[in-house]
């Protein structure tokens, strides 16, 4: 890779040992993907919590602190695995909680902004068109590339830390024009009436794409999506398909028409997503039994508008004694929703609003064992996709069905697919 004078000085150790190691790792990654140079980034967003990092990752961060390292650009933190105020209520391992607190202290010493959110783009920072970033958490990446036209690859925890220390990232993949051309065409003919439908659409397209380097183009979408709907679409596309970018004709900024989205290239393949395809996707998540153990609204964290919707559906009702209801969001949204009365409405009904966390990284297998949960009902296609790996039975349904099931303790008959 070609280095600037500044980068060469970092590699020579003039900025300290931590930036030197960070840049060396970035060069190894950059050369693997044939990057020719670096680009400066305005900020980094890192996934760093004990569930994902383990003791080895903790030791790595601790070594950076011992080197006296400090971030060169703002670094925000992703959702983590512990809500420190509510950890006991959801029976999290006290050892994990203590370790997470120690990790947070280390990250603060490096200069991280501890915002603990996977929806930084909705609550912390909205990048501009063409801005180069080093963001981790796949949902944040696909949002930045697709919805705002900013530019970032998936930057996993250590890569985002490295970018935070050096202020640059290797210029490959989605930093380059050529990678942002649409490759697959999807004609969207299905009706989309709920966050879960948008997530299901992301799941369908993601399963057919399954390649970080392919960019699906969605054409024919009948109704203009809201930001929260695009959030569920993107999170699912990233989760099922490893996708970092999509175009939606007439909606996203690099896709005013198909010619712009495909950048003059022909699609490699074309697919149709109709109502039957959407129904078939839901049928891949049949209930194991009608009784529901836990209903989860999470993955990504909820916006204030999503919290408002859950609060309205639950107002004056009571979650069934045999069923738990969990909602996750960030500190900012929880505080706002508390002021607006939504947190009270959800908690008066027997639900729990957690903050700074996303459910799937809260050691869900251990939580399920502690509470005796066997199945999980959610409106998040991303959560449904992940939970299979934890040997919990995932059930994906629309938001109103999830709330009805939480109140009744079982899926309504019309939502049973088994």
């Amino acid at each position: 890779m070609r280095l600037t004078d500044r980068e060469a000085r970092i590699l020579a150790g003039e900025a300290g040992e931590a930036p030197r190691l960070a840049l060396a790792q970035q060069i190894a990654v950059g050369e693997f993907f044939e990057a020719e140079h670096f680009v400066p980034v305005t900020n980094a967003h890192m996934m760093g919590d004990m569930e994902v990092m383990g003791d080895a990752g903790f030791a790595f961060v601790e070594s950076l602190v011992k080197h006296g390292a400090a971030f060169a650009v703002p670094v925000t933190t992703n959702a983590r695995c512990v809500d420190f105020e509510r950890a006991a209520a959801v029976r999290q391992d006290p050892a994990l909680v203590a370790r997470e607190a120690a990790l947070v202290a280390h990250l603060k010493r490096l200069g991280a902004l501890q915002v603990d959110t996977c929806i930084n783009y909705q609550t912390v920072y909205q990048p501009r068109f063409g801005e180069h970033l080093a963001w981790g958490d796949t949902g944040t990446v696909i949002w930045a590339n697709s919805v705002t036209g900013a530019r970032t690859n998936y930057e996993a925890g250590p890569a985002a830390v490295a970018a935070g220390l050096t202020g640059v990232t290797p210029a490959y993949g989605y930093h380059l024009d050529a990678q942002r051309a649409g490759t697959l065409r999807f004609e969207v003919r299905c009706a989309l009436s709920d966050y879960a439908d948008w997530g299901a659409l992301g799941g369908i397209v993601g399963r057919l794409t399954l390649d970080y380097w392919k960019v699906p183009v969605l054409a024919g979408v009948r109704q203009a999506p809201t930001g929260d709907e695009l959030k569920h679409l993107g999170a699912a596309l990233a989760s099922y398909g490893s996708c970092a970018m999509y175009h939606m004709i007439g909606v996203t900024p690099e896709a005013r028409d198909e010619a712009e989205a495909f950048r003059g290239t022909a699609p490699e393949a074309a697919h149709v997503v109709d109502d039957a395809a959407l129904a078939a996707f839901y049928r891949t998540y049949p209930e194991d039994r009608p009784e529901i153990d836990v209903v989860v609204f999470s993955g990504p964290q909820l916006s204030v508008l999503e919290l408002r919707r859950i609060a309205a559906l639950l107002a004056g009702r009571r979650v069934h004694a045999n069923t738990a209801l969990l909602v996750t969001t960030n500190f900012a949204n929880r505080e706002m929703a508390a002021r607006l009365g939504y947190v009270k409405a959800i908690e008066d009904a027997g639900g729990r609003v957690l903050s700074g966390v996303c459910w799937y990284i809260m050691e869900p297998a251990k939580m399920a064992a502690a509470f005796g949960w066997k199945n999980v009902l959610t409106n998040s296609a991303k959560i449904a996709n992940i939970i299979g790996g934890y040997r919990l039975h995932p059930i994906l349904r629309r938001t109103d069905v999830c709330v009805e099931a939480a109140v009744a303790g079982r899926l309504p008959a019309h939502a049973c697919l088994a």
Partner: protein
Amino acid sequence: MSVVLTGPKGFGPDVEADILLSRDSFSIRYDMDRETGVISRRGHALEGRSLAGKIVYFPAVQGGVAAGWAFLALVHRGVAPAAVIFGRTNPVMIQGLVLAGIPAMHRVAPDPFSVLKSGDRVRMSPARGLVEIV
């Protein structure tokens, strides 16, 4: 030794080990028990198999940034693969493998299933972009 797979220049030093071939894609979070390095997802082609000490091939990858830290954790627990070969990969896999110091290659040809079977002893040279059968 005869060359069976070639690809672009990869990462890390030469390594020799048994190969383990998967027909299914790979996600650290979705498919693997990160405590043990054993594939845990029901129905995965390698369900119940440990990656420890093997040169593992996956045709594609899925999902998220957990891979960034997870390979380092596997190294510390002594259950890391010796190397990983991908058909198509994504940045987080490589970021994680670089952090952990585990050799990696991608975009190999031909299809490994056409020239190798699980258990074959192979030598992988990322610098030269090739895999040889021992």
